[in-house]
C-alpha cells in the first residue's frame, strides 16, 4: 500500500523563484488496486514518483510504502518497491538476462529464485526469444520489457510505473498493460502514470488527476463522469483544469 501525505517538492529555479513541482499532494493506493496519476507533461507526476522511490526528498510532507516511511526507512522502501521511471536506460553491453540477474542480486534475491522469476516474466512479457541478446541489439519495445522485468525482479508488493508505454507500438503497449493488470490480480499495489486518457481509462481502478503539482480530482471514471456530466475523457480533464484555474482567479480576485 502507498500512502501519500501532504507531499510537497520545491525546486529552486535559475531566476531564484521557487517552483512547486508537487504541492501538498495526498492520496492512497490500496493493495490489489491500480491508481493512475493523470496529468499533462510537467504536472508533477514524475517528481511525485521519484519522491516515493526515495531518490528525491520532499521539502515537506511524507509518504509510506508498505508502511515504511520514505524519509526514515528509505532502504526498506526501496526493497519493497519496483520502480520504473519513464526515461531510464539499460546497460547496452549486458544481455537481457544479465541485466535482470544483476538487479535481482542487488535486491538480494537468491539465484534459483532469480532464474524462475526471469522465466515467469519472460512468459508474461513474451521475452524468450531475446533473453540472451545484448541490449544494444534490442528494439525500443523489447528494451522497455527488459526495463519492467528488471524493476520488479524481486516481486515487490508495490509497483510504480512512470509512463511505461510512452513511445511504444500498440502490440507492445497492450502486452505491457495486460502484464500490469496481471500484477494487480496477484494482489500488487500499482501506481501508474500517463498522459494518455484512453490508456488511463482502460487500466485504472481510480484516477488521480494532477495539474501544476496539485490534485484536480480523484475517483473512478464513473465517479468523474457523474461529477462532470461529461462523457469524453479529454473533456472531463479539460473541465477540471479550467475549473481549477477559475478557482485561482476567483481567489486572486
Amino acid at each position: 500500500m502507498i500512502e501519500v501525505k501532504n507531499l510537497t517538492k520545491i525546486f529552486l529555479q535559475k531566476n531564484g523563484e521557487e517552483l512547486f513541482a508537487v504541492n501538498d499532494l495526498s492520496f492512497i493506493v490500496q493493495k490489489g488496486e491500480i491508481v493512475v496519476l493523470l496529468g499533462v507533461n510537467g504536472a508533477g507526476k514524475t517528481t511525485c514518483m521519484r519522491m516515493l522511490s526515495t531518490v528525491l526528498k520532499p521539502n515537506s510532507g511524507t509518504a509510506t510504502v508498505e508502511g515504511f516511511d520514505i524519509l526514515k526507512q528509505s532502504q526498506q522502501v526501496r526493497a519493497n518497491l519496483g520502480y520504473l521511471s519513464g526515461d531510464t536506460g539499460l546497460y547496452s553491453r549486458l544481455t537481457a538476462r544479465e541485466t535482470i540477474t544483476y538487479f535481482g542480486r542487488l535486491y538480494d534475491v537468491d539465484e534459483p529464485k532469480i532464474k524462475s522469476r526471469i522465466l515467469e516474466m519472460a512468459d508474461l512479457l513474451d521475452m524468450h526469444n531475446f533473453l540472451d541478446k545484448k541490449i544494444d541489439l534490442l528494439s525500443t519495445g523489447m528494451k522497455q520489457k527488459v526495463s519492467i522485468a528488471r524493476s520488479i525482479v524481486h516481486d515487490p508488493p508495490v509497483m510504480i510505473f512512470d509512463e511505461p508505454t510512452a513511445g511504444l507500438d500498440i502490440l507492445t503497449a497492450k502486452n505491457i498493460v495486460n502484464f500490469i493488470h496481471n500484477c494487480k490480480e496477484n494482489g500488487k499495489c500499482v501506481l501508474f502514470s500517463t498522459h494518455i486518457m484512453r490508456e488511463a481509462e482502460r487500466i485504472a481502478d481510480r484516477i488521480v488527476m494532477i495539474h501544476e503539482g496539485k490534485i484536480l480530482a480523484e475517483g473512478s471514471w464513473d465517479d468523474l463522469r457523474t461529477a462532470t456530466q461529461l462523457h469524453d475523457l479529454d473533456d472531463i480533464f479539460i473541465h477540471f483544469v479550467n475549473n481549477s484555474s477559475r478557482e485561482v482567479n476567483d481567489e486572486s480576485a
Partner: protein
Amino acid sequence: MNLHKIMIIYRKEMLDLLRDRRTVITSFVLPVILYPLLMIGFSSMLSRQEHVLEKQEMTIYINNQVMDESSLLIEKELEKLETFQIMEPINLFEKANYLPLVEDNSIQALIEIRDSLSTNGYLVYITTVSYNRSDDKSTLAYEKITNALKNVEFDLVGERLQKIKINREILNAVDIKEENVAPPEKMVGFALGKFLPYLLIILTISGASVIASDLVAGEKERGTLETILVSAARRNELVVGKYLTIITISLLTVLLNLFSMYISFTYILSQAGEVATKLQLPLGNFALILVLMLPLITLFSAILLSISTYSRNIKEAQSYQMPLIFGSIMLSMVSFLPGFELNFGFALIPIVNFSLLIRDIMLSNYNIQYLFLIIGYTILLDIIVIAISIKLFNSESVLFRTAEEKSLKFWGKGKKDIFSTQFVMLVFFILLLGLFYIGGSWQSKDIMSGLIKSEIFIILLPVIFILRISKTNIKSTLRLNKTNPLNFLLALVAAIPALIVVAVLGQLINLVFPISESYVEGMKNLLTASDGGFWYSILVIGVLAGICEETLFRGYIINGFKKLGFWKSIIISGVLFGIFHLDPFRLIPASLLGMWMGYLLLQTNSIFVPMFAHFINNSLTIVITTYGDKIPVLKTLATADIIPYWYIFPAGLIVYLVYLVVEKINPKIEINEL
C-alpha cells in the same frame, strides 16, 4: 555496507567495461602493442638515420688566408675526410656572402684559417669553423672537422717539440682517468628515477580517467543511474563498487604498461649487445614502487570518481578532469628538477611526494619514515575524497542537475551583474593573467616603474572602468565613507603586531617549505634598492600599492562574495589577495593580511581604514629592511635570523584586542547592507 553487494556491483561493472571495445583497446591492447612498436621502431629508425647521415656527402668551404706549409697541411687533413667535398675557392672571398650558405644548409661548414703570433713568438693558426647547430648534418660536419683539426694540431705540436728536442711525454702532466663508482643498477636507477615517476603518474591518471568518467557521469548520460539508485543497494555500496572498478582497471593499465615497457626496453638493450649484460634493472625497487602505486592509484580513482559523480555527462566530466590531469603532470615533473629533496613539507603535497619518493627509491636512497608518512597520508586523503563521493551520491541536487549550460548563458546574457561571483572571479583571473604577462614584462625591464604601471593600469583602472561602465555608484561601492578617526589609530597600533604574527607564521611555514637564500635576497633588493631612494619606495610600495590594491580587493572583489556572509567573504577575498601576489612563499602571509584588511573594511564600512593599514604594513617592511638595524623595536625583526616564536603571543593578543575594539566602536552592519 555489505561486502557481498559491493562485489555484485564490482563484478557487473568489470563485465560491462571489459565488453567495451574502446576500454579494452585503450587500456590493454594499445600498451601491449604500442610500446614495442614505438620503442623498437624508434630505436631502429634512430640507428638507421645515424647511418644514413654518416654516409651523406658534406660540402665545406675552406678559406685559407695563410697559405704556408702548415696551413696547407690543415687543408689537406680536411680534404682527407671521407664524404667531404671541398668547394672550389674563389678569388675575392667575402665571409658575409658565404655565411648564408651555411645557414640555409647549402654547405655544411665554412672554415677560415688565419694566423697570429702568440706573445712568445709562436705562430698560431686561428681556424674558425662556422656551422649550423640547428642542422644535424652541419653539426656532424663540425664534429668531424674538429676531430681532424685536433689531429693536425697533434702533428704540428709534435714537430715543434722535436725541433727543440723535447719529448712529447712532457705534455702529459695530468692524466685524467674517469672512474664511476655507481653500480650499474644505480646508474639505471638514476636515469629511470627521473622519468619513471612522471610516466607512472600519467599512466595512472590516464588509465583511471576514461573509466571514471564513464562510471557515474556516463550512467547519468545513459539514464541508468536512477535505476540503481532505486535498487536495494546502498549509496556507499554503489560508490565503493565503482571505486574498486576504477582502481582495478587503473592498476591493470599501469601493470600492463610497465610490463610492456620493460620487455621492449630489455629487447632494445639486448639488441645493443654488450651493454645489456652490464645493465640490470633494479627489480627489488620496482616491486616496492608497484606496492607504492596502490595508494596513489586509489587517490586518483577517488578524485576522478568524485568528479564523475558531480558531472552531468561524460563530456563535462572530461572537461573537469583536464585541470587535474595537467596539474598532476606538472607536479609529477618535480623529479626532473635538481635540488628538490623529499622533506616533511613535500611529503604532504600529493603527487610531488610520490614523484620524489619514487625517484629516491630508484636510487635505493629513500627515507623509510617518509615512505610510511606518504602512504598513511595518502590513505587519509583517500578516505576524505571517498566520503565526499558518497556525500555527492546522496545529494539529489548533484544527481539530478538539469543540463543547463551555466557558462554559456553567462556569456550570452546582455546585462551582467558585475558583483556576481562568476563575474568577479572572471575579472580576478583576467587581472591575474594581466599581472603575470604584462606586469611581469614591465617589471622585468625596470622594477619600480613597472610596479607603478602595474598598480595603475592592471589593478586600479580596470576596477574604475568596470564600475563606470556599469554605472555603479563608485562612492558607495568602494565605501569611500568617513569613519571614526580612532579606527586609523587602531590600524596603526595593530600594524607591528600584525607584521610579527605574519612573520612568525611565515617562519613556521619555512620550517616545512624552506625558502631559498637567493629568493630572500631578491625580496630585500626589491624593498631597499630603488633608484629614487627611501621615500620613492614608500610612495610606490606603500601609498600607491595601498590605494590600488585595496580598491581592487576591498573595493570590488570582496563584494562578489558577500552573499556568502561576513566571514566567508573576508576569507575568500583574502585568499584571492594572497594568490594575486603570484608567489607560493607569500601566499599564506599575504592571504592573512588580506583577511585582516577585509575585516577592517567590513567592520568600519570605510575603505580608507584598510588602505591606511595596507600603507602602514608595506611601509613598515621598507623601514625595517632599510633602517631596521638602527631602530630599537624593529631591530629583531630586521636582523635576527629567527624571530623568537613566543613573540606571536603578545603580538597576537594586541591584534585580538584591536579586533575587539574595532568591533566595539563601529556600528554593526547587517549582512544585507554589506
